[in-house]
Every structure is written in C-alpha cells, then in structure tokens.
C-alpha cells in the first residue's frame, strides 16, 4: 500500500488519507459504542487516537488534523457524558478531552513530518539511483563515441597515408625526370653512354609513373565499385610474353624465368586487368630480388582454375603479414612502392572469382605470390 500511495499525487493522497481517517473513526466508534458502559473513558480515547495517526501517515497534516478533529468530536459526543452533546460536566473529562485533542493533533501533525522526511529520503535515494544510472549511460555513450572517433581517426589516418604515399610516389619519378631533363637542357656535355643512361632513366621513370597512374585509376574504379572485368578467353603464355617485353627495363637487373606448361588452357579474364595483376606482381618481385637474381613465373591447373605464381628471391613474407600485405598502403620495409599494387591485384583477382595469396617458396627463400583464374568455358556456339 505504501508504495502505491507514494505514487499518488498530493491532493489524492490527502483525500485518501481523509477518507481513511474518517472511515476509521466511524469503524472504531461502532464496536466501542457497544462496550461504552463496560470500559473507562481511556479505551475510546486510546482507540480514537489511531485514525488521526493513520490519516496523517497516508494523507499528510491536513488529513491527520481533520481526522483527529473528527475523533475529538466523536469522543466528546459519544463517550463523554452527557452523551449526544458537546457539553462536558466533569472536570476530569474536560482535562481528558483537551489532553486527547492535544495528543491527537500533535501526533497527527508529527506523523506528517516523519512521513515527509522518509519520503524525502526515499526520493533522494531514487534520485541518486537515477543519477548513477544516467552516469552509467553517459559512460557507455562516451565509450561508444570514443570507439567511433577512433574508427573515424583511422579512416582519416588512412586517407592521409594515401595522400602522402601517392604524392611521394608521383613526385619521386618526376624528381628524376625533372633533374635529368633540366640538366640536359642546360647543355651539360655528357659522353654518349652517360647521355643514353640518363635518357634511359627518364624513360624508366616515365614508365614507372605510367604504372602508378594505372594503379591509381584501378584503385578509384575499385573503390567506386566500377570494376567490371570484360571477360574473354586469355592466353596466359601470350600475357606473360607480352608482359616480359613491356617490363624489359624493370627486368634489366634480374632474370625472368617463365615455365608455363605447353597444354595450359585459356582462362576467362579481362586481359588488361590480368596484365595489371601480373605487372604488379612482377614489379613487386623485382623490388625484393637482389640484382642478378631470378624471378620465376609458374602455372598449373587445378579444380577448373589456373594457378599462376610469381616467385622472388627476396627475404619472404612472415606468416603474420601474409594477409596484411594485400591491404592498401601497407608498404613493406622502405620499399619503393605506393603499397597499392598488391591491393589492386587482390581486388582484380577476386572480381574474376579467383583468390590470391602468398606463401613460402619450395626452397624456403623468397616469397611465392599466387593467384587463380577460371579456366575458359568453351561457348556453346563455339562447340557447334
């Protein structure tokens, strides 16, 4: 009852207390009337003090005082002779009545003070609980925001890294080209072989820029979801031979050893995109192979896919970094790469329904980057 009463508004509580007080006065009076002649005046006085207390407890001071007033009236009317009037003839009775009234009124109002205090304490406890819940909610919200902030900062960092990386990579070949052309333009007298070497450097760096720009374009196509392979039958042998010719200058200081089986089937792929995968893998292999070393290209068929592998003679990729190297902008130790190439390979290979991975070479030296592409499905019209 206490809880439900506490939930009521103050006027309602007052009304309820008042009703309870008056009802109790009435309820207590009825049995007392029956035994009026058998008990002293003390019994009704003691019993009738209760409604005031209870009404005060429920409905506050006003309810308590009114109920106490009703009790005083009833006591005087019903239990102090002459019955049925407010007159009091005996001094003892008058003293008793006044004492009763004083006690009833003070108790009724004291009850409210105590009840108010208790209510206030309960309210404070509830407020503290609510505050601590609020605080907990704030803490959780703060945690969530800080996680979100961290994620945003990571994106921002990645974007900054991209910009740094791309501008560095674009500028590096440009620096060589500008240094050499400005020097030649200045009329510096070089012997023929130095001059050729310098012009070759300009050519190399221009090609490097070209490959980087191709990678950047692919990356933006991949990011915007616009990478749609134009699938046709591709001869891997032709792709590798053509790639070797085009990468001639990159391969100046290393040997490329391509051993493709004579009966290797055609694959279903976008020639230009597949060429980009091979170019990036070979370029990556050249970067990690010491001058004079050999890069091997192998191919084999398994489960309707052709697996093409590029094997270098570098220091290999530790197992912990084998997934990570395909993430964009993770350039390895001071490498001359934007960190874009392998990420682009992964996106292109996956767009063809294949997969790409890196593991150890059979001998344990260097890395073996391999990817799969589907074997060409002969079209019906071609078969008939």
């Amino acid at each position, binding site marked *: 009852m206490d809880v439900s009463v506490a939930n009521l508004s103050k006027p309602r509580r007052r009304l309820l207390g008042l009703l309870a007080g008056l009802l109790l006065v009435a309820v207590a009076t009825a049995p007392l009337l029956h035994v009026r002649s058998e008990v002293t005046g003390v019994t009704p006085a003691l019993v009738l003090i209760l409604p005031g207390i209870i009404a005060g407890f429920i409905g506050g001071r006003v309810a308590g005082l009114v109920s106490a007033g009703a009790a005083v009236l009833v006591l005087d009317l019903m239990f102090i002779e002459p019955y049925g009037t407010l007159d009091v003839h005996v001094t003892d009775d008058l003293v008793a009545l006044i004492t009763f009234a004083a006690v009833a009124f003070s108790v009724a109002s004291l009850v409210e003070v105590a009840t108010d205090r208790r209510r206030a304490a309960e309210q404070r406890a509830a407020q503290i609980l609510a505050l601590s819940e609020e605080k907990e909610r704030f803490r959780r919200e703060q945690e969530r925001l800080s996680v979100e902030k961290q994620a945003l900062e990571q994106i921002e960092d990645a974007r900054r890294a991209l910009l740094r990386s791309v*501008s*560095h990579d674009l*500028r*590096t*070949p*440009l*620096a*060589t*080209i*500008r*240094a*050499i052309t*400005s*020097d030649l333009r*200045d*009329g*510096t*007298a*070089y012997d023929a072989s*130095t001059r050729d*070497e*310098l012009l070759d*450097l300009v050519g*190399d*760096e221009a090609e490097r820029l070209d490959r980087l720009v191709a990678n950047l374009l692919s990356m933006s196509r991949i990011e915007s979801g616009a990478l749609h392979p134009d699938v046709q039958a591709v001869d891997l042998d032709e792709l590798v031979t053509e790639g070797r010719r085009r990468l001639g200058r990159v391969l100046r200081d290393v040997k490329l050893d391509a051993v493709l089986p004579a009966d290797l089937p055609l694959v279903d792929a976008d020639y230009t995109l597949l060429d980009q995968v091979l170019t990036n893998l070979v370029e990556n292999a050249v970067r990690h192979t010491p001058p004079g070393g050999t890069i091997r290209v192998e191919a084999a068929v398994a489960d309707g896919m052709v697996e093409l592998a590029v094997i270098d003679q570098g220091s290999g990729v530790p197992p912990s970094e084998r997934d990570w190297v395909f993430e964009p902008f993770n350039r390895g*130790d*001071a490498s*001359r790469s934007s960190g874009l190439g392998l990420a682009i390979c992964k996106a292109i290979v996956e767009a063809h329904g294949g997969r790409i991975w890196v593991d150890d070479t059979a001998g344990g030296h260097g890395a073996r980057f391999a990817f799969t592409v589907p074997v060409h499905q002969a079209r019906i019209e071609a078969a008939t």
Partner: protein
Amino acid sequence: MNTPERDREDGDGSLILVVDDEPPITRALGAALGARGYKTAIANNGEQALKLAALQDPAAVILDLGLPDLDGIEVLRRIRGWSEVPVIVLTAEGAEDRKVRALDDGADDYVTKPFSTPELLARLRVALRHRRRGGQVELDSPVHEVGDLRIDVAHRTVEVEGRAVELTPKEFAFLALLARHAGKVLTHRMILQEVWGPEYGTESEYLRVYASQLRKKLAEDPSRPRLITEPGVGYRLIARN
C-alpha cells in the same frame, strides 16, 4: 641559368656526398656533378650518410630529408654536431615547416623536389663559396655587391644601378643582412632575430611589410626580382642578371 663552363670551374674535384634512397636520383645527380668536375659519394640511407660524412670529409652534402631509416633532419643535426660542412636539403613540396626546421638546424639551403639540376647546382655553388670564404671575412666586409645592387655597410648607403636609394635603418639592416648572405635563403626567424633582436622570431608579418617597402624603393621588376620570397620559409637576395 649558368653555362657549363662556369659550372666546371666550380667543381675542381671537390667531393659531394649525395644522400637519397632513390637510386635513379642519385644516378642522375652523380652524372650531373661528375660532368662539372665534382667527385661524388652516394649514401642510400641515414646511417650510411653519417658514416660517409665522417670518413670521407666531403666538401658539401646534398641530403634528402625523406630517408628510410633516420629522419633527414636528425642526420643533419648529427652532422652539425661535429662538422660545418655545407648541407643542402632536398624536401617535398608543401613541407614548409620541415624546410624551416632544417634551415634553423643548420642546413645551408634547400631545394624542393622535383627540382631543376642547374638550380640545385647554383645553390651548391653559393653554399660552397660562402663556406670557402670562411664566413667571417665576408660578414665583416664593408661593401656587398649583389649584381647591380651595392650596399656600403660602413657609410650606410645603398645604390641600385648606380642610383642612390634612401632606406630607413631597419630596411637597411634587413637588406644588408640578405646581401651578406647573397644567394642563401634566410628564415623569418633568422632575419627577425638579427634585425629586430633576439626576443623576436615569429613576427613574420613585419618582414612582409619591410620586404614590400624595399621592393618599391629598389624599383623591383616582378619578372626579374632580386628579393625573392620563399613562401612560408623566408627571403633570399639574388643577383639580377
């Protein structure tokens, strides 16, 4: 900008240490320096640079600030710990704070990548010339001639193409300081501390005002300026040709 004959005069077999992690750049610079009579030593990283700088005692160092192992500025600081060898740093576009830091930490000059080789060589010659004259003699010289500009420190007079120009004391001090280091970039901080006093250093807006007044008084032709603004870095006085 300069004729090859003039370049070759400057070379005289001095050893230049080139520090860059990009083999194509070091090859290109090696060839350009070789053609002008310099010898070169190449370092591809910071540690190697410090070793070669100590062992080979180069006449000058061309130092790329973006090295794989050590920060280029750290390499510069360590070299400055024991050597006054001229150092020209190569930096990326837009890294003004790095340029200023390198200059304040003792670099003689900087060139922004991608750079023109003749320009780099011109900066190298200026740095070598300043160092060869031992600095002190030049600093005390009473008259500085920078192209058609003649600054007489003793008499506090300035002539442009033979015509006298009236300058306020601060304008004079600013111009004389740049003339004393003709061809070299001086950072805002260097100029402020030298002309205004050691408690200055960040008031680069003063310099903009004085530079603009100086340009007016020197009747600068914007297409052939003598007083060059190095944005975000400082100022440089060059001979107008």
